[in-house]
C-alpha cells in the first residue's frame, strides 16, 4: 500500500474527483472570508490603535444596507454549496442498474464480504477496475461504518437493516478500508484493504476458491432445508417474480398497506412474518429470527430475488441436506491483523 505523506488522499473512484472539486470550491470561499476577516481585524487593530488614554472614538451604530449585504451574499453562497453538495450526494446514492452487488456483513471486529460468484473474504475487498459496484451492508451486532477514503464514500452499517453504497473503482492499487463508527474495544483494528485489480485478475482471484457457492445457490439449499417450499407456492404466497413488485399487506396494527418487496421487506418477512402479512393469507409462518445468521438471510434474499418464473418455485424434489452449512465466515480466521498489514507495507 502506498503510505507516502500527502495532502490529499489518492483519487481512486469516479466519485473522488467530484468530491475534491466541491471541496476546493469550499476551500476557496473559506480562504476568501478568512482573509477578509483576519485582514480587517489586523488592519483595524493597527490603524485604530489607542493613541492617547483618554481617546473617545466617534460612535457608529450600524448600517442596514451592510447588514443586508452580509446576510444575502453568504446566504447565496451557502445555497450554491447546498445544491452542489446535494447533486454529488444524490448521484452517490443512485447505483446504476448494471452494478455488481457485493455483500458486506460487519461484526465486532471484522468485515465479512461475499462476492456474487460466491467467493468470500474477510477484511479485504477485491474489486475489478472500472466495474460499477453496489455494496449491500448490514451488521450482526452494533453499528459500524464502511469507509474507503480513496473512494470518498462511507456508509453506516446498521444492525437490523440493509444500507448501500456504490462506486466505480478507477485506479489499480491497494487502499485503506476503515470502520468509521465507534464499535467497541477493537474499533481501530476493524480495518482492512481494498484491492483494485484488472477484471482479468479479478476473475482469476474469484476462481481461486473452488468451493465457493453463489449466494442464490446457497439460498436455494437453505430454502429447501428449512422447508420453505412446502408452503410457498402452494398454501403460502408465491415468491416467483415477487422482488421489486408491490405487495398488499396487513401490518401489525391491522392496517392495510401496499409495500414494495425490496431486500428489507424480504428480510423482515423472514424474521418477523407477522409484521407485514400478505393480504389473504393466515399467519402460519414461524419466525426464523433465532435460526438464520445474517449470511444465511442474505443468501435467502438473493435466492428469492433470483426467482423470476413460476417454475423456479416448484416443490423441491432433491434430497434434503444434512446439518445446515454454517456461514463460512465463522470458519475463516483473520490471518493478519490490519496493523500487521500496515507494517508489512511500509
Amino acid at each position, binding site marked *: 500500500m502506498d503510505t507516502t505523506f500527502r495532502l490529499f488522499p489518492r483519487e481512486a473512484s469516479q466519485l473522488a474527483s467530484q468530491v475534491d472539486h466541491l471541496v476546493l470550491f469550499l476551500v476557496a470561499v473559506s480562504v476568501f472570508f478568512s482573509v477578509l476577516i483576519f485582514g480587517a481585524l489586523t488592519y483595524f487593530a493597527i490603524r485604530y490603535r489607542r493613541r492617547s488614554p483618554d481617546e473617545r472614538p466617534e460612535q457608529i451604530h450600524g448600517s442596514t444596507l451592510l*447588514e443586508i449585504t452580509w446576510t444575502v451574499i453568504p446566504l447565496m453562497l451557502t445555497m450554491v454549496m447546498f445544491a452542489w453538495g446535494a447533486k454529488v450526494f444524490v448521484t452517490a446514492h443512485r447505483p446504476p442498474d448494471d452494478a455488481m452487488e457485493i455483500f458486506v456483513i460487519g461484526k465486532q471486529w471484522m468485515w465479512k464480504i461475499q462476492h456474487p460468484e460466491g467467493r468470500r473474504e474477510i477484511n479485504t475487498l477485491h474489486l475489478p477496475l472500472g466495474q460499477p459496484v453496489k455494496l449491500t451492508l448490514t451488521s450482526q451486532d452494533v453499528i459500524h461504518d464502511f469507509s474507503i477514503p480513496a473512494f470518498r464514500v462511507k456508509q453506516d452499517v446498521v444492525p437490523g437493516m440493509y444500507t448501500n453504497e456504490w462506486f466505480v473503482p478507477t485506479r489499480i492499487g491497494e487502499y485503506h478500508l476503515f470502520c468509521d463508527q465507534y464499535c467497541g474495544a477493537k474499533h481501530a483494528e476493524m480495518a482492512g484493504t481494498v484491492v483494485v485489480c484488472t477484471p482479468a485478475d479479478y476473475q482469476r482471484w474469484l476462481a481461486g476458491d473452488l468451493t465457493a457457492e453463489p449466494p442464490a445457490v446457497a439460498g436455494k439449499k437453505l430454502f429447501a432445508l428449512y422447508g420453505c417450499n412446502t408452503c410457498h407456492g402452494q398454501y403460502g404466497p408465491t415468491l416467483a417474480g415477487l422482488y421489486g413488485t408491490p405487495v398488499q399487506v396487513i401490518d401489525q396494527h391491522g392496517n392495510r398497506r401496499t409495500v414494495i418487496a425490496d431486500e428489507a421487506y424480504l428480510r423482515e418477512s423472514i424474521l418477523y412474518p407477522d409484521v407485514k402479512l400478505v393480504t389473504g393469507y393466515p399467519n402460519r409462518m414461524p419466525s426464523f429470527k433465532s435460526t438464520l445468521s445474517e449470511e444465511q438471510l442474505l443468501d435467502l434474499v438473493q435466492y428469492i430475488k433470483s426467482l423470476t418464473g413460476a417454475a423456479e418455485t416448484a416443490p423441491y424434489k432433491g434430497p434434503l441436506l444434512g446439518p445446515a452449512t454454517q456461514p463460512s465466515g465463522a470458519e475463516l480466521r483473520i490471518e493478519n491483523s490490519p496493523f500487521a498489514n500496515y507494517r508489512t507495507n511500509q
Partner: protein
Amino acid sequence: MASIPYIPEYSGVETYLNTKHTVLSWLLTEDHKRIAILYMISITVLFAIGGTAAVIMRLQLLTPHSNLVEAETYNKLFTLHGIVMVFFFLVPSIPTTLGNFLVPLMIGARDLAFPRINLFSWYLYIAGASLAITCLILGGVDTGWTFYTPYSSSFSNTHVVLAITGVFIAGFSSIFTGLNFIVTIHKMRCPGMTWFRLPLFIWAMYATSIIFVLATPVLAITLALVGLERILGVGIFDPNLGGDPILFQHLFWFYSHPAVYIMILPGLGVISELVTCYSRKAPFGYAFIAMASLAIAILGFLVWAHHMFIAGISIYGGLVFSVLSFLVAIPSAIKVFNWTATLYKGSIQLDTPMLYALGFIGLFTVGGLTGLFLATLGIDMHVHDTYFVIAHFHYIMVGGAVMAYMGGLHFWWPKMTGKLYPEMWGRIAAVILFIGFNLTFFPQFLLGYLGMPRRYYAYAPEFQVYNVMSTAGASILAIGYLLPLGYLLWSLRWGKTAGPNPFHAAGLEWTTASPPPPDNFDETPIAGEPYNYHEMDFSDV
C-alpha cells in the same frame, strides 16, 4: 467551623467575599455571586480531569501503534474526555460562572429570581459530577460521550448506567439555571432597563436559557430509555429486542445539537462585551447581534440530523437537514461581520481580554467555515466521523467557547475578586493558547481529509506527521492553561486593587464596588442607553 483561607481582605468595606467566612456560609449561600465562585472552582476541577485524559490520548497518538495505553483504556479515555468536557465543563462553563455572577449585576437586580433553586442546581451539578467521577474510579465507561445504541444499551460491559445517571442529574442543574435566568431577565430588570437596552451578554444568556429549558429534558428522556433497555431489556433501540438504533440518534442529537449552541452562544455574548469595551464603541448593529442569538437558538433545534447524513436516514431527509444547517450558519456570520465592523474607527487597546476576543473571532470563523464543509452532503459523506469533524468542533468548542470563557474570566476577574491580574502574563498566556490551539487542531483537518477515523487508538503510519504536530501543539496548549491558573491565583493575594471600573467599561456591573457588596448595589440603579462610550469619562486613565 474552619474559615476559608486566601480571601482578600478589604478594610472596612463589606463585600460578598468578606461578609461571612465559614465554610458553611459558602455551602449554604444563596448569593448568586458566591454560587458563581462555587461553580467556578468545580468546573475548573472537572476541566483538569478532562484535560488530563486529552493529554494521555495525545501521547498515545504520538506514534502509529503506541503501547502507552491499551485499546480499551483509550476508548475509556476519549469517553471520559467527551462526557466531562461537554456535560460538566462546556455546557455549564459560562452560564453558571460568568452568567450567575453577571446576570443580576448587568440588569441591576439584587439576585437571581430563585436563589435557593440556584444553590440547588449547584448541588445537582456536584451530584452528577460525583457519579461521573465514581464511574471513572470504578473503571470507566467506553461508549463515547454519544452513547450510541445498541452498543451502549446491549454490548458495552462498562459502567454505562452510572455515567448516564450522572449526566441525567447534571441535566436538571442546567434546566434550573435556564429557568432562573429566564424569569430573572423577564421580571427583575431595574428601572430603565428595557429589552433593547439589555447588554448583548444578557441576550446571549437568554437565548441559551431557552435551549436549556427546551432541549435538556429530551436528553434526560433519551438517557433514561437507554437505562431501561440496558437494565430491563425493554426493546427501544436494540433491533434484537425489536428497537430502532437510529431512533436513538434522532433523540440524542435533538438535544446535543442545540447543546452545541448552549456551549457557544454564551461565548458570543462575552465577545460582544469585550469587543465594545476595548474599542470604546457601541456594538455595530446591536439589534442584529441580539436577534442573531435568538435565531441561532431557534434554528439550532431544526438541524439535528446533519449528524446522521450517512447513518441510514433517507436521502430526502439528508437534503432537508443540509439546507437547514446552512441557514443556521447565517446568523453566526452576521455576528462575526458586526464585531469586525465595531472595530472600525474605534480606539483599540490590545489588552488580555481583547486578545482573547480577537483570537475567538478568528478561530470561530475557521470553525464556522469548516462547518459548511460538514453541512455539504457531498463532502460529509467523505469526512464524517474522521478527524475533520474533531478539528471542526474543537475550533468551535475550544477555540470558541473556551477562549471566550478565558477572555470573560480575565475581563470580569477584577469585578469578582477586586484584584488585577498581571497584564503582561495575561497577554503571554493568551498568545500561547492561540498558537498551541492552532498547532493542535489545524493538522487534524488535513488528517481527517486523508481519512483518519476518529476514536482510533492506533493508525496507519502515513498519518503520523500530522499527529506529531497535533501532540506538540497540545503540550503548548497545556502550558497556556496552566499559566492563568498560576497568575490568577497569585493575584488573589498579591494583585493590585482593582477599583470599581478598572477597564472603563460601560455596563451596570461596573458602577458598583469590586468586589460587589452582598446586595450588589447600595441603591437600585437606573439604566440608560447601553454601551454609552461616547459619554464616558476617560480623563483619569
